[in-house]
């Protein structure tokens, strides 16, 4: 039984959520969502997992503002953000490529990043595509900055950047990423070649595969839950059909 790349990512992300009280995940994020559901199932104390835009696993009742209020109150421990571009200072760009406002390639927009990135203590940047197109030296538009000047209210920010090739930790003092883990099949060289920004080197170990027990649990117990929110993903990953709509 060998873990797929996605299962590896789910496993390593789940480790990072251990002990959280409340994790929020976007609707279009099946890997972080699966990780959150796995972490919740493994948790010995209550862990709220909010899957945005689901009805069943979203217990906010005051409309879409409550997520942001809840985060600003410090009640959301972990959140995932992505980006069309992510740069070496952990600035993220969800707006587009080229000069603003008439961009060469326009993407949807910044969503809630310009608050969430500041107030959620543990923001995990997650971008499966690890290329010089997605990981750049400097983003074309800062939807939300990776760090802030002295004096700016900023209890939250990036902890790590997880991609399809590697895991970087973010050093808030140096304002730089540090490569810590590379996934099986990658090398320091292959990661460097695919990364558009400079970064520091940590211990750089290979990302551990999930244990056989965890993998079995993921496939047996968690996959059907995942299928409620991310039916296409669950079908593709595990051949599990959705049992009911989320």
């Amino acid at each position, binding site marked *: 039984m060998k873990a797929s790349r996605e299962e590896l990512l789910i496993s390593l992300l789940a480790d990072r959520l251990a002990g959280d009280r409340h994790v929020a995940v976007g609707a279009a994020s099946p890997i972080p969502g699966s990780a959150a559901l796995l972490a919740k199932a493994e948790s010995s104390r209550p862990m709220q997992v909010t899957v945005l835009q689901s009805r069943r696993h979203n217990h906010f009742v005051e409309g879409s503002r409550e997520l942001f209020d809840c985060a600003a109150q410090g009640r959301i421990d972990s959140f995932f953000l992505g980006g069309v571009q992510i740069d070496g200072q952990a600035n993220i760009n969800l707006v587009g490529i080229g000069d603003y*406002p008439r961009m060469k390639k326009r*993407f949807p927009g910044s969503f809630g990043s310009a608050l969430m990135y500041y107030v959620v203590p543990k923001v995990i940047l997650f971008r499966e595509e690890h290329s010089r197109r997605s990981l750049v030296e400097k983003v074309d538009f800062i939807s939300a900055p990776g760090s802030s000047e002295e004096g700016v209210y900023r209890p939250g920010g990036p902890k790590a950047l997880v991609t399809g090739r590697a895991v970087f930790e973010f050093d808030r003092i140096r304002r730089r990423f540090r490569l810590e883990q590379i996934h099986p099949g990658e090398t320091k060289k292959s990661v460097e070649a695919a990364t558009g920004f400079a970064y520091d080197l940590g211990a750089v170990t290979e990302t551990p595969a999930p244990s056989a027990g965890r993998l079995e649990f993921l496939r047996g117990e968690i996959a059907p839950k995942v299928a409620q929110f991310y039916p296409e993903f669950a079908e593709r990953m595990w051949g599990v059909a959705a049992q009911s709509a989320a």
Partner: protein
Amino acid sequence: MAIQQISVEEIAEAVPDGALLGIPADYSGVPMAVTRALIAREAKELRLFCLPLTTIQGDMLIGAGCVAGIEAAAVTLGEYGLAPRFSAAIEAGLLDIQDSTCPALHTQLQAVERGVPFMPMRGLVGSDILRHRPDWRVIDNPFADEGDPLVLLPARPLDVTVIHAPYADSEGNVFIGRRRELATLVHASERTFVTVEKVVEQSLFESEATAAGALPAFYVEAIAQAEKGAWPCGLTDLYPPDGGELRRYAEAAKTATGFADYLAGLGLSPRAAA
């Protein structure tokens, strides 16, 4: 006293050209029947204020040439991809966009809701969103001992809001359930029109449970019945998004001619000037 009941077309007529129009998110009550009626009546120069984002509703209005400007945290078809007419309009320099972030859009309407000229928000400092918003202001928090920069967002009163909801009672109280952002839009709007799947006799205020999910009638000018009025978007637990239709739209709208063909399939066409 009974609420005024009008038609979907009459709602579209009541939204004046040039209006600042409140737009709900895709997971909320998207008034697609009225959106098609706005395109049919060739509405123009609309400015869309999205709480906090828009999907096919905004993309169709933009593609049809009804929109002069937009304030949003995102315009996207979600799992069906980018919003093609939106992206095309931006890339062609044809659409005035004020990029925002979800909580800022909430904040600007909540300021209207509370009758104050502005409200503060955390975050934003150091972002390019802020840098491109000369209408926002950074102040030093007057309650802090040391420098503490903070963004103030001005109240943004809306001219008109149109939403779709599962049902209303005959007095005009509308069931919105947990979708309280619809109430925020409505509170911040001078005029509000609501389309509903059906009108029921029993007052929502007869039980504490339905009362808690109500939008009170005194905020609503008129309602119109529109079965499947959010289609192809979904409506809470009543019907899911029509994935086939949204995929068809996402594909067709990739080009201006494909979009025009899609509209033609609905008996509509883009504005001549667009």
